[in-house]
């Protein structure tokens, strides 16, 4: 069940699984965004991988929207057949940033989720090895890529 | 049999290299002649400078500070080569062409403070014999053939 163009893909996603996602957008050619509901993101991810062919994980990262009080976790996925780049976005509240880990579906999100965990403090439930990746193991200075991070006096 | 042929072939390729001239530039004795656009240390024309401060604003490394010069009005750029990355954005931004780049790359000093070049020091172009007292001749890179890549020029 391959969607042919970006618009068809978005339409189909909205039509078939309205309960799993908030919205789906086409940015430009080969760039599709899907904003998922946090609770059921695993189901959506599995559907995306198995039915829509987004089998290649590319990367993952977060953005901290401090004024709106939310953080957005973005998973960059790739369909090796159609070469569409899909951004699976999950909005998380800033005071309680936790979500299910995607490593179950895309194994290679391991490193990227560890990075998001140490840089943004997002808790991935069910991640096999949630330890520091880039920062030193005894890092106590907070979450560096959050917008309210102040660099003073945190050097271990 | 082709295995032995392959086994011997690398010898035949490598052996002629032994007789070939080496590609090393014996640096303090010989020094390359750089191209016209080469980005070495800056030269400041004090008369052309209009104290606009664009160079200091655009510097990505924040290594340009405007300081007053004795006997002149206004402030002139002072460059800290300890942080400067020689990107040349300041030269591009300069509206009057007061900052240009020379082909001197010898910055070494005994103290960090010696790397901070005052406007007066930037204004003068040093003699190559002062910078490199051991220098005997310069080398022009030429792309002729397999054997020779550098051509020796005796002028200083």
């Amino acid at each position, binding site marked *: 069940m391959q969607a042919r163009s970006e618009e068809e893909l978005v339409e189909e996603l909205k039509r078939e699984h309205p309960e799993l996602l908030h919205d789906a957008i086409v940015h430009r050619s080969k760039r599709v965004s899907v904003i998922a509901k946090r609770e059921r993101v695993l189901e959506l991810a599995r559907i995306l991988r198995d039915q829509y062919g987004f089998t290649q994980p590319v990367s993952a990262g977060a953005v901290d929207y401090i004024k709106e009080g939310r953080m957005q976790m973005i998973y960059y996925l790739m369909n090796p057949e159609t070469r569409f780049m899909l951004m699976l976005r999950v909005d998380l509240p800033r005071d309680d940033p936790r979500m299910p880990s995607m490593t179950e579906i895309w194994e290679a999100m391991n490193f990227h989720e560890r990075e998001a965990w140490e840089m943004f403090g997002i808790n991935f439930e069910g991640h096999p090895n949630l330890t520091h990746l880039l920062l030193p193991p005894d890092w106590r200075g907070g979450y560096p890529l959050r917008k309210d991070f102040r660099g003073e006096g945190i050097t271990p | 049999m082709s295995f032995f042929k392959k086994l011997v072939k*690398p*010898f035949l390729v*490598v*052996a002629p*290299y*032994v*007789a*070939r001239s*080496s*590609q*090393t530039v*014996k640096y303090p004795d010989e020094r390359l002649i750089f191209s016209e656009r080469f980005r070495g240390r800056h030269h400041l024309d004090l008369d052309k400078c209009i104290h606009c401060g664009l160079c200091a604003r655009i510097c990505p490394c924040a290594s340009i500070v405007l300081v007053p010069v004795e006997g002149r009005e206004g402030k002139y750029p002072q460059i800290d080569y300890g942080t400067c990355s020689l990107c040349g954005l300041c030269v591009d931004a300069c509206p009057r062409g007061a900052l240009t780049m020379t082909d001197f790359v010898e910055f070494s000093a005994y103290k960090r403070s010696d790397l901070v070049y005052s406007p007066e020091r930037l204004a003068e172009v040093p003699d190559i014999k002062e910078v490199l007292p051991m220098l005997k001749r310069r080398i022009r890179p030429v792309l002729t053939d397999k054997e020779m890549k550098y051509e020796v020029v005796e002028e200083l």
Partner: protein
Amino acid sequence: MDVVTLIWLYILGLVRWLLHEAPLQVINFIRSLPTLIPELLKWLWDFIWFNFKPLAQIIVIPGLAFILLFAMIAVWFERKFLARAMLRIGPYYCGKRSGWLQVIADFLKLFFKEFVIPDDAEKVLFLAAPVLLPTIPALAITLIPFDSNWVLFDAGGLSLPVFLAIAGLAPVIPIFTGWAANNKYTIIGSFRTAYLYISGEIPLVICAAATALLAGSLDLVDIVEAQKPIWFAIPQFIGFLIFFVGLILEAERTPFDVPTAETELVMGWRTEFSGVLFGFTMMAEYLSFLGWTLLFIVLYLGGYLGPSLFGVPLYDHIFWMLLKLAVIVVIIVLIRTVYPRLRLDQTLRLGWNYLMPLSLLNLLMTLILKWGLII
């Protein structure tokens, strides 16, 4: 008589002797000089020959001076040659462009550097290894005939087996060094050494046995003398090739420098050595390289024999030995520029699957040849 009178009498006697007899004796002595001087010189020569020849052998060839000089020249040549192949210059400033003083400078640096003994190391074994390592190949080199009467250590007609026995001791030291240094890299390196030596040495011994069979003697001088009609490299071509590969393998040179693989194990079993200890292990590497190369020349390339024209040897001298040594060293260094290192399993496969059966085949062929000759 008192003492003064005695002294006076003595002086008078002396004066009389000087006036009457001394001139005669001087004249006699001068007359006999032409016959005395050759006698004196002969005595001096005999004295030097009998007392100092072993000393000269110990000091000059194949003694310390030769070994050190060989290590220095080999290191210098290797660095310069590799540099040329890489389009570099190599050592340049130290010693008038040729850079020959660089080797001495490096040696001095290694000698005066502080060396570190790891805390957890077994200190006695750790320090014993750099001393023992150069000793074993140096001991083996004493058996090599540099001329028909230039053998330092006479093993009573058994110099080939004695050489192999002494050289066979060599892998033991890396093994206990690797354990004594208490480091993971050294232990892996030492086990690799053990594997490698076993796989390489057995074909070598079998090949050496074949040459001994062909010469009909276990004495290295006899083996050389037996090559007067033709060098053994030709009747024993397979053995010649196997021995050449095995010699690179034993000397731990590229492409078989598995135990000290720099890109994998830092420096293998030598990782923890520093300063003068490291210098000694490096020297030991060149020494074992020298020892095996000399044996190779003696067994297959006619040792000190010069090139012979129609069965008449031109001039046998140490010089030929050194010339052959230089040629082999150049070839082995060239091999280093050209080939990458093999993996351990590939090296072992080469040793057990190819060298070993081929060397047995070579032995069999030698037997048949010898049998045919007897009949």
